[in-house]
């Protein structure tokens, strides 16, 4: 009885794995096959990847550029904000934290339309890549703040800072030598999340982009709609090669961390 139950559940889980992985494998194969309609026997080729590279490499550069700029902005805005939120824990702080999460709950389409009706008339801003950057920062900032806040709430920040202050450390010294090193893991996890989400963001970007500011997912949508299956697949393959290393890195650092200098009540929030 127990054995059959195990086998059934195993088979079910395996089927779910297949549902998720088979299309990925098919798409990778299609991107490397000379003619997908005929099949693998038509031969393997890098021709499609080459065509994608020739036609769309600027979208790849733009996506990487926006992701890095987005990371820089979320670090500058998010880490100090998370620190302030961890220190205050007031009602106002809670409210701000709540508000900050809204761009994740509200569909990207609505956020993008809001930006367009408010700032769309500012021509040079509307047509620049920074217009897309603003949308990406809105969407990724909550992840950076939450990730850093989770680490900061798990350590006894107050005691650490008081200790340093009693030894004569200034606020600046405490922030850079006590706070930042302690939330390194949170910053790293948040940074990977921010870059991954920014590289893949489409819902907002599709409305925010112009013909001169096409990101990778925008190019993907273009290719899916108008080009042959092999090129769409090759383009997807390029996207996978960018995103999968980020994912693996995220899984690696999400592995259980060792207990750090924990608060007295023993409450240790994990992410």
């Amino acid at each position, binding site marked *: 009885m127990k054995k059959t139950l195990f086998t059934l559940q195993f088979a079910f889980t395996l089927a779910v794995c297949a549902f998720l992985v088979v299309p990925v494998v098919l798409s990778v194969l299609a991107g490397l096959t000379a003619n997908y309609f005929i099949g693998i026997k038509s031969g393997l080729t890098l021709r499609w990847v080459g065509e994608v590279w020739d036609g769309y490499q600027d979208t790849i550069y733009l996506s990487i550029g926006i992701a890095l700029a987005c990371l820089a902005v979320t670090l500058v805005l998010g880490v100090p904000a998370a620190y302030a939120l961890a220190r205050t824990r007031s009602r106002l702080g809670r409210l701000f934290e709540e508000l900050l999460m809204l761009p*994740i709950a509200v569909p990207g389409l*609505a*956020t993008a339309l809001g930006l367009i009706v408010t700032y769309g008339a500012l021509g040079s801003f509307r047509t620049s890549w920074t217009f897309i950057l603003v949308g990406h920062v809105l969407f990724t900032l909550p992840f950076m703040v939450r990730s850093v806040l989770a680490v900061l709430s798990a350590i006894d920040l107050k005691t650490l800072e008081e200790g340093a202050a009693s030894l004569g450390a200034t606020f600046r010294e405490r922030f850079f030598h006590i706070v930042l090193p302690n939330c390194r893991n949170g910053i790293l996890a948040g940074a990977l999340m921010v870059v991954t989400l920014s590289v893949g963001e489409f819902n907002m970007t599709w409305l925010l982009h112009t013909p001169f500011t096409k990101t990778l997912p925008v190019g993907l949508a273009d290719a899916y709609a108008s080009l042959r299956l092999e090129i769409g697949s090759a383009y997807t393959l390029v996207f996978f090669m960018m995103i999968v290393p980020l994912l693996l890195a995220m899984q690696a650092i999400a592995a259980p961390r060792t207990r750090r200098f924990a608060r007295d009540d023993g409450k240790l929030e994990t992410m």
Partner: protein
Amino acid sequence: MTLLLPAAIFFAAFFILPMCRLFLVGGSGAMGWSAYAAIVTDASYFKALLATLGVAAATTVATLVISAIAGVFLQRHRFPGKSLMVSMLTLPLAFPGVVVGFMVIMLAGRQGLIGVVSQMLGGDNLVFAYSLLGLFMGYVYFSIPRTILTVMAATEKLDPRLEEAARSLGASPWRVVCDVILPGLKPALIAAGAICFATAVGAFGTAFTLATNINVLPMVIYTEFTLSANIAMSAALSFVLGAVTWLALAVARSLTGPNVAAAG
């Protein structure tokens, strides 16, 4: 508190202000403020709303059932190849909606695997990627990875002794699932379900990749904005859409406590 200021200013300028503008623009069209009621008074918008909510509800139920079975199984058993399975199940975690749409095309599109297999079995070329069914499949694909992770984390926190106690008192496996495991997982399932639902209601990329004639609300908003240039109506509809997704998450949070957030 001054450290909050940069983030607060950015947020006020680029989110609070635009959302207020969006609300005002929504009422500035030919219909005036009744544009906000159009989602229920206009037959075609209302139909799109029903289709959107229907696909989202179906996605939520299917994703929760699939993820609960696979997630509990993976957390409760040790066997060779398990970590590989977990990696495979979380691989699509960072795929955007457009790519998920393409995955559906690989499976159920005109040159898709399902069609090839159905033809080999002597049937017709089975193609359903470019319909509501394809959209449903895409949303389930998108939601399974994050939901399985939530279920696994929640299962880890369940006390296995409760299940042993139930078994030793003679409960059948089915009773153990219904009376011990499911109640224990309930908060996690509600939270994950709300995220599934909210993402399926608001997502745009998958529908965009699959077909432009799938009438779900995000596609209607997009069409109103680009093809009809009816900015007021698209603003009103997207404001309502945002309210629906926010409400779904807020209700879930009030039921389960403060750990709900969406992604995607």
